[in-house]
């Protein structure tokens, strides 16, 4: 049996003495599609950065198998969209380590063109990143991760601040990549629109509150421990649907709801 791509054992991380992650243990196996949910400040982004190796935890161990290549896709809100770079320049950044010439070789240019075509970005290589739609912008950073030969894709809130159509595009893309064999971990605030449709869900609030299939994890008790607020959960077409507060008070479902892709069937 293949071991996990990344494994965290009792990982603790803190910023300026304030703990952000406490004794988190988690393993990501090949072929998994994992969602991480939790309130703002619960440590979701920090968890991804620890998995990616961008942060070294203050305690605990992080183990990656030798062959694991991680592609990290940052939150679009953190990207400097005014930076003077074209789509091709961003994607080619994947080929930075150990390269000492500024220009790309013919083989490199062909690889970039292939990955851009695969993600539906063919012909956009010379465009500035700001000139793309929200979904295309997200794809540029996924393309960079893929060009790196990532076996594990880490995405920090890939559908944050995007419209329904863009969210749909991004989720279709991730579904396709997962079907192609890529392991994926993403963070999200969208319980109904995304989290409930993933095969595995981790509820985080500095500690792992629950870890399992959405049907097992999305319960009023777990959500209250995760978010510190009472939420109602009903089952619809075999999937949990979360309501903030009580349905009697006509509260909206938590997250996008409705127009979704079922990602549970993949692999």
């Amino acid at each position, binding site marked *: 049996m293949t071991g996990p791509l990344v494994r965290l054992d009792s990982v603790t991380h803190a910023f*300026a003495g304030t703990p952000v992650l406490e004794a988190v243990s988690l393993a990501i196996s090949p072929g998994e599609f994992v969602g991480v949910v939790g309130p703002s400040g619960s440590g979701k982004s920090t968890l991804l*950065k620890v998995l*990616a*190796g*961008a942060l070294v935890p203050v305690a605990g161990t992080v183990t990656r198998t030798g062959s694991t290549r*991680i592609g*990290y896709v*940052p939150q679009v809100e953190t*990207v*400097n*969209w*005014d*930076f*003077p*770079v*074209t789509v091709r*320049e*961003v994607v*080619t*950044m*994947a*080929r*930075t*380590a*150990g*390269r*000492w*010439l*500024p220009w790309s070789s013919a083989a490199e240019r062909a690889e970039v063109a292939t990955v851009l075509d695969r993600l539906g970005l063919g012909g956009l290589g010379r465009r*500035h990143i*700001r000139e793309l739609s929200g979904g295309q912008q997200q794809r540029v950073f996924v393309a*960079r991760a893929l060009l*790196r030969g990532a076996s594990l894709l880490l995405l920090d809130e890939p559908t944050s601040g995007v419209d329904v159509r863009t969210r749909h595009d991004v989720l279709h893309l991730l579904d396709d990549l997962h079907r192609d064999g890529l392991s994926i971990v993403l963070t999200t605030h969208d319980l109904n629109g995304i989290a409930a449709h993933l095969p595995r869900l981790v509820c985080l609030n500095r500690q792992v509150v629950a870890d399992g299939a959405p049907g097992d994890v999305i319960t009023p008790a777990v959500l209250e421990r995760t978010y510190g607020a009472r939420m109602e959960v009903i089952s619809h077409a075999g999937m949990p649907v979360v309501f903030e507060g009580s349905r009697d008070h006509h509260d909206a479902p938590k997250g996008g709801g409705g127009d979704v892709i079922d990602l549970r069937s993949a692999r």
Partner: protein
Amino acid sequence: MSWERALEPFAFEFFRNGMVVATLAGALCGLIGVYVVLRGMSYIGHGLSHSIFGGAVASSVFGINVLAGAAIWGFASALMISGITRRRAIGGDAAIGVITTAAFAIGVALISVRRSFTQNFDALLFGNVLGVERGDIVVIALVSAGAVAVVFFGYRQLLFTTFDPEVAETSGVRTARVDALFSLVLAMSIIATMRILGVTLIAAALVLPPVVARMLTSSFARMLLISTAVGAGCGFVGMYASFQLDVASGASIVLTGAAVFGVVYAVTGASARRRLGHTHV
């Protein structure tokens, strides 16, 4: 103006030296300034030049070679700023303010204690391009060649680290080393150009060419080339205007850059201004 009159200053060696040095200094600042501006550290040129001035004074007091002492002082300041910013303890602008003013204050304190100097620091403060000698040309040529080599061979590393340092680190780029190398190049560039432009004007030489280039392109590679060319052009034209108009050379070079900025700003229209609007100048 007749051709004879126009070419007259080139008959003087001091002017030819000045033209070479001013053009090289402009190009060097234009090249390095791209990274300075895109890292949101436009104030670093101003701060580091003050810090290096403090180092030059301290070196003089302790009988150390002024250039070497200033270089070490400037590099150490740049490394400290980079280190503090990387840890995100405080923002880059605040780190520059704290480190460089402290380094400058040490120089001021030493001046007040010693009260007399064998060294004249006027050239460092205000720039004296007409006083440059062949040795100065060699120094700035070597520093320029070094900066070009670093930007050429470290092009990809510098780009990734400037654009997205966190992801660069996870992608196998040693961002701490890249930042340290950039700090060294920046400190050396400021030291090499300080005698030409002066402490007070060097920040403008680092910032104006990349800002002009940013208005003209959305490609990083083209921005590097345009900024270097604009910096060299401003150095050349500014130096020439300095002679013809009898204006201080540092001020003339910077005012030429400001004029280019004004023209490009007016001509390129709203889209270019929007690009510039979010650049951390």
